[in-house]
């Protein structure tokens, strides 16, 4: 009896530790973001101060709002572009058997494993040659390298699982492949599209290396770069309060989205992965 109690108790202790470790850093960032002045340098575990100074400072001075706009523009464009290219490609890869299909899928997967740094030099040249340097288009263009393989991969696994009867019925009714995709499959694919779109959005929203390299002025930066480069008057005077406020602003929508769509996101993350 006692043994079973200790077992249950230690299990819940483990659960508590997992939750605490997962949530605490973000909680502490929120806590810090509401502190201002010298309160920032007192260590508190529970909320003691409430001041919006940091948020006001971040949103009114500098170009952080502009950075937010850039991030939203880049991430949404990337999602639309990747989904558009991926849906049709996934149809071909999932529903039509042709020679070299396995090899093609493998190549696509290989591209998603590319170290980004390996294409940095070549992309840098391309971006400059196309005159995209220091514009959001440079990022929309270059982010395709990691969003497209991923969306193709997940949508292919999803489309492969759609029942063949639906497609056969459509073929008998004389539907062309394009009609099958847009009229028959698309309505069934909304959940998968939402999931992959969301994951691609998050990936683009968080990207740092390309954003750091292909933009050079404060106005064209995306939020991760803006947060990374946020600094005070001197090197030793890091504005932690403002950094935390900016971090919270950027993260809250993401955390909200992830929690709302958590079931779908987990499915999307594990699709393809576990079937190995």
């Amino acid at each position, binding site marked *: 009896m006692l043994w079973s109690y200790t077992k249950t108790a230690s299990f819940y202790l483990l659960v508590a530790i997992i939750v605490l470790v997962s949530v605490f850093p973000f909680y502490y960032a929120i806590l810090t973001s509401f502190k201002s002045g010298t309160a920032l340098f007192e260590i508190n575990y529970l909320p003691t101060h409430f001041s919006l100074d940091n948020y006001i400072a971040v949103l009114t001075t500098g170009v952080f709002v502009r950075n937010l706009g850039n991030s939203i523009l880049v991430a949404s464009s990337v999602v639309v572009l990747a989904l558009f290219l991926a849906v049709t490609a996934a149809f071909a890869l999932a529903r039509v058997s042709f020679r070299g299909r396995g090899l093609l899928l493998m190549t696509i997967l290989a591209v998603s494993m590319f170290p980004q740094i390996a294409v940095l030099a070549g992309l840098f040249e391309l971006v400059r040659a196309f005159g995209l340097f220091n514009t959001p288009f440079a990022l929309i263009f270059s982010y395709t390298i990691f969003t497209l393989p991923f969306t193709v991969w997940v949508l292919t696994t999803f489309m492969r699982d759609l029942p063949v009867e639906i497609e056969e019925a459509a*073929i008998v009714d004389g539907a062309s492949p394009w009609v099958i995709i847009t009229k028959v499959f698309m309505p069934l694919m909304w959940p998968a599209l939402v999931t992959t779109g969301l994951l691609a959005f998050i990936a683009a929203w968080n990207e740092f290396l390309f954003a750091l390299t292909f933009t050079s002025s404060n106005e064209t930066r995306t939020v991760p770069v803006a947060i990374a480069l946020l600094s005070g008057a001197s090197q030793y005077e890091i504005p932690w309060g403002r950094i935390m406020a900016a971090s919270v602003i950027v*993260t809250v929508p993401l955390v909200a989205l992830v929690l709302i769509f958590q079931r779908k996101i987990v499915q999307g993350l594990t699709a393809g992965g576990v079937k190995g």
Partner: protein
Amino acid sequence: MASTQSTIRIVPAGHTKRAKSDLMRQRLRAAGWFLVPMLIALAIVAGWPLLRTIYFSFTNASLTNLYGAEWVGFKNYLNWTVLKSGRVIWSGLLSDPAWWNAVWNTVRFSIISVTLETILGTVVALVLNAEFKGRGLVRAAILIPWAIPTIVSARMWGWMLNDQFGIINDVLLTFGLIDHKIAWTASSDTAMIAVLIVDVWKTTPFMALLILAGLQMIPRDIYEAAALDGVHPVKTFWKVTLPLVRPALMVAVIFRLLDAMRIFDLIYVLTPNSSQTKTISVLARENLIDFDKFAYGSAQSTMLFLIIALMTILYIWLGKVRFDGGDR
């Protein structure tokens, strides 16, 4: 739908065959057209830049002089000059201590972080696979570190690990685990530990979710049978759960390993300028953009690409993992 199916059946056999091959041809053609845009896009953003990076690594290109670059062969990789005195001077990245330091950091970081993440991820996955009240809440909680952008987590932890005002030092001092405040990110002995803490915190959820998906594919009756036979739960884990979840685990490990090998953002923000944590990606970008050694940086990028490609090939070959999914 039932009526259309019956129509198929009454069509004479020969006719169907011909119609089918026409159909196949039409489908193949459509498939081709559907694939072309994606392939072109990938060729432009991945294939061509990769080739150019490799090309630049054999030249003396610099940021300001990309097009006037001259071919220098393997000079960026390894080169030697024999002085009059007979002394040989080596140059190129293979003789560069900074390069080997970065390789060592990358390997050390990848192996330690992925090992820790696999162990902790398995623990979290096993917890989430058990049935208890509030399981949904725990799953939501572990998604939070995953959802937070890497840069933001680097900044958040940078603040928590701050030497003067950081909460981590405060906690450790309160519990008497350390006797003086540690400059986690600045000190050379702890910089790598700081990076590992943040990376493990951020990516264990991903591992846990992948392993959990594997665990959930194991039929429950196996456990029931084991329990009926009086097998100890620990033994059940080693003899039943682990072998069955191994494929999912291996895929998760290789994905994470390849991802860890290219780490850039966390280190760039959390421990800038620390030679203890500088990885290949950080070093290569520094040379490419900041130091205006474009060709040299390209050579380092190319080497990282080769290392990762080799690892992938070795893994697929050894593990015989089928990535293509195949026809089921």
